[in-house]
């Protein structure tokens, strides 16, 4: 058996294979559900119901998808330029810390101004956090995979210190959490009475903007050129180092918006368990989306639905919600295989 490259894969091939990947994921998940003692149809059905079955469930899924859209976009932007940003988790917390500092009374401004300033400041913090590894990469050739990954741990410990020290809520009964944001610093709900905040709308706008940058601007062209062939890009007069640094700023800023929207929108205060690994799951989201900004929205909704649905399924049927993690991993592997098979044909000799 060997792989033979396909020069120009047909549209049918490019659409069928991802669909097959999703089918394979569902099949494998059913098998696992059976092993765990559940009826696969009931388990999958309950996941669907849990994710989309009621107004409450649907809003919960959208809320869960919001930070994943931001981190997924951050990863997609960086990966397209072959800047391997594994540090979206740290950049998310950088944004969250800025919000917790500015939003708890340090700045007294009307809501629109305060929210804008907080969002911009959060983006700057996240951008700065990725700028350092990007500079180390362009100046000294330090591998950004290592630096960004390690930054996650360092920054989480730093947040832990802040929550035990300077940012600790004096009214928090000793819990390591920040003070609650002032009402002006909270992202309002999109519709009164429904538990969905403006962070979700912001995420959709961010995806549209990234898509426009990608397709319509010189920066997008430069980022893709640098990612595909940095040598040729440099030769053609594209300022490669500058493009990598701009990419880093954009990517770090997007990841930080996840932290902004979680604290200002959903939680109202900063805690150490703000993110259950949104920065890492963002990598899965971006890969599932084939690094396409609009695909990121779809992929984030898919991933969020599986998590939210699995939680509810677990409560109703008793099959462990770890099934969600396995489904996600399976989906990713199946998608990677589907991408491979779009580009190559298997030949048996």
């Amino acid at each position: 058996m060997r792989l033979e490259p396909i020069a120009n894969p047909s549209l049918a091939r490019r659409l069928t294979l991802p669909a097959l990947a999703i089918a394979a994921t569902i099949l494998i998940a059913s098998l696992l559900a059976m092993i765990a003692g559940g009826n696969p149809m009931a388990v999958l059905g309950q996941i669907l119901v849990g994710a989309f079955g009621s107004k409450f469930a649907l809003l919960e899924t959208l809320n869960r998808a919001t930070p994943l859209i931001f981190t997924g976009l951050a990863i997609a932007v960086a990966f397209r330029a072959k800047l391997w940003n594994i540090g979206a988790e740290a950049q998310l917390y950088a944004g969250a810390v800025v919000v917790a500092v500015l939003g708890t009374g340090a700045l007294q401004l009307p809501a629109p101004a305060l929210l804008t300033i907080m969002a911009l400041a959060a983006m700057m913090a996240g951008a700065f956090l990725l700028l350092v590894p990007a500079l180390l990469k362009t100046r000294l050739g330090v591998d950004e995979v290592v630096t960004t990954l390690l930054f996650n741990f360092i920054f989480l410990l730093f947040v832990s210190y802040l929550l035990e020290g300077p940012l600790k809520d004096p009214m928090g009964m000793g819990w390591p959490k920040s003070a609650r944001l002032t009402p002006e610093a909270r992202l309002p709900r999109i519709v009164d009475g429904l538990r969905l905040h403006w962070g979700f709308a912001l995420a959709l706008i961010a995806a549209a903007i990234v898509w426009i940058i990608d397709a319509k601007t010189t920066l997008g062209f430069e980022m893709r050129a640098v990612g595909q062939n940095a040598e040729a890009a440099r030769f053609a007069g594209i300022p490669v180092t500058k493009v990598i640094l701009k990419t880093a700023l954009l990517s770090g800023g997007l990841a930080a918006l996840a932290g902004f929207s979680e604290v200002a929108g959903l939680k109202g205060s900063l805690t150490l368990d703000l993110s259950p690994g949104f920065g890492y799951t963002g990598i899965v989201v971006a890969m599932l989306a084939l690094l396409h900004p609009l695909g990121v929205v779809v992929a984030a909704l898919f991933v969020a639905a599986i998590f939210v649905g699995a939680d509810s399924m677990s409560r109703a049927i008793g099959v462990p919600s770890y099934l969600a993690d396995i489904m996600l991993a399976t989906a990713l592997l199946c998608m990677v295989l589907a991408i491979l098979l779009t580009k190559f044909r298997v030949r048996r000799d």
Partner: protein
Amino acid sequence: MSGVESAQPVLRLQNITKRFGSVTANEAVTFDLAKGEVIALLGENGAGKTTLMNILFGQYTADEGTVTVFGNLLPPGNPRAALDAGVGMVHQHFTLAENLTVWENIVLGAQPLHAPRLRAGAAKAKIRALSEEFQLKVDPDAKIGALTVGERQRVEILKALYRDARILILDEPTAVLTPQETDALFATLRTAINLGLSIVFISHKLHEVMAISNRVLVLRHGKLVAERATLDTDRAELSALMVGAETSAPDLAPATPGAALLTLSDLSTPSIGTAPGLRHANLALRAGQITGLAGVSGNGQAALSDLISGLVTPQSGQFEIAGNTVATWSPRNAIGQGIARIPEDRHKTGTIADFDLTENTILETYATQFSKRGWMNWRKAKAHAESLIETYDVRCSGPDSRIRLLSGGNMQKLILGRVLENAPRIILANQPVRGLDIGAVNYVHGRLAAARDAGAAVLLISEDLDEIMRLSDVIHVISDGRLSPEFARGTMQPEQLGVWMAGDGFEGCDHAA
């Protein structure tokens, strides 16, 4: 037995046909190879030479036809069987692991994978014996990464010999070699023939085919169109057979040189790794003139081309463009100064393989011509690509197809179009016809000559002395980073240039020493 064997061909290809989709790469190809014989397989790019050899070596499966080695049918699509039958292939692009040593690369795959340890002593002894016998000088303990291209090729040949190959297939082996290395390779091949090996030599360089082969097979559009004994033919006939018509080199009218557009005076650049930088170079590229740079590869051509491209800045000396001293220097400055680059490596530095033709045509000019305040004008870009495809006769399925699908010649035409459409003042053509077929070569040369007549200053860097002498109005020779004085067209014989290329003749000119 030996009498029977020498009468029987060592290799027989019968009726080989291979199709890729609607394209027929090989059609009913049949030939024999005798013991001790060298067959040259001649043909333009895309004629089906490499496909045919990949079928023989088992990397592709033929749709029809059979391969027989020493009287035994080869199972199709099985490189291991081809290796075991005594077929060794030296690919155009080497297949060596750079972080391993020479002997490790050679035994890789030849020894059982799960042996507790490699038997280094015996392997090295065998390699030393082989390199002695075949005059393939190489240190078995050297790391591949530290070797020159010529040395790496020797390792590839040793790899085949180490596995007791009796038939060697060499795919464009001289494309990457200096003239001296080519001579050494030919000496090795003659030794191999004397020792009873047989060789299939793939090339499109006619003088090499004439020098080394006994028999020439000409492939055109996948079909075997002619077979000649080398003694009964000549280069003119072969090139006519290859392209199906007599080709003509461009007739160059005498140049009318104008002002110097790019001047180097006493200029030096840092050396990079083992590649020398420029040493106190003096050069003037004049408008309306083609300046040829002759020299053996690796003597500072890269330094000069990097300097002009904007990738390297001078260490000392004067660098002027159109009479103005260059202060800040980058690839973007170079493009802004009207310098057009035809890069040496089309795939690595000239194009972006997965970008479509539109994106590749605007790679150098997107910022100035195809965007406004950061917004791309894709409609204009696409129209531009379409007009280039038309004007420069790029064969492709349209501006939206990815450039990796183009043949080398068409890719080069697109690059030519990309830079020439901007009416450049200075053209840096670095090995502009390497790997192209004769039709594309003449096209490229014609375009360069036309650009010269339109008033551009052209610098032609090439290792092919014929190309330099045919096209250049003035010639410099580069050797170890030093530039010879300027020689006018027709005043130098190849032998005299050879003296300079070897580094002699610089006495008295070299102020540095």
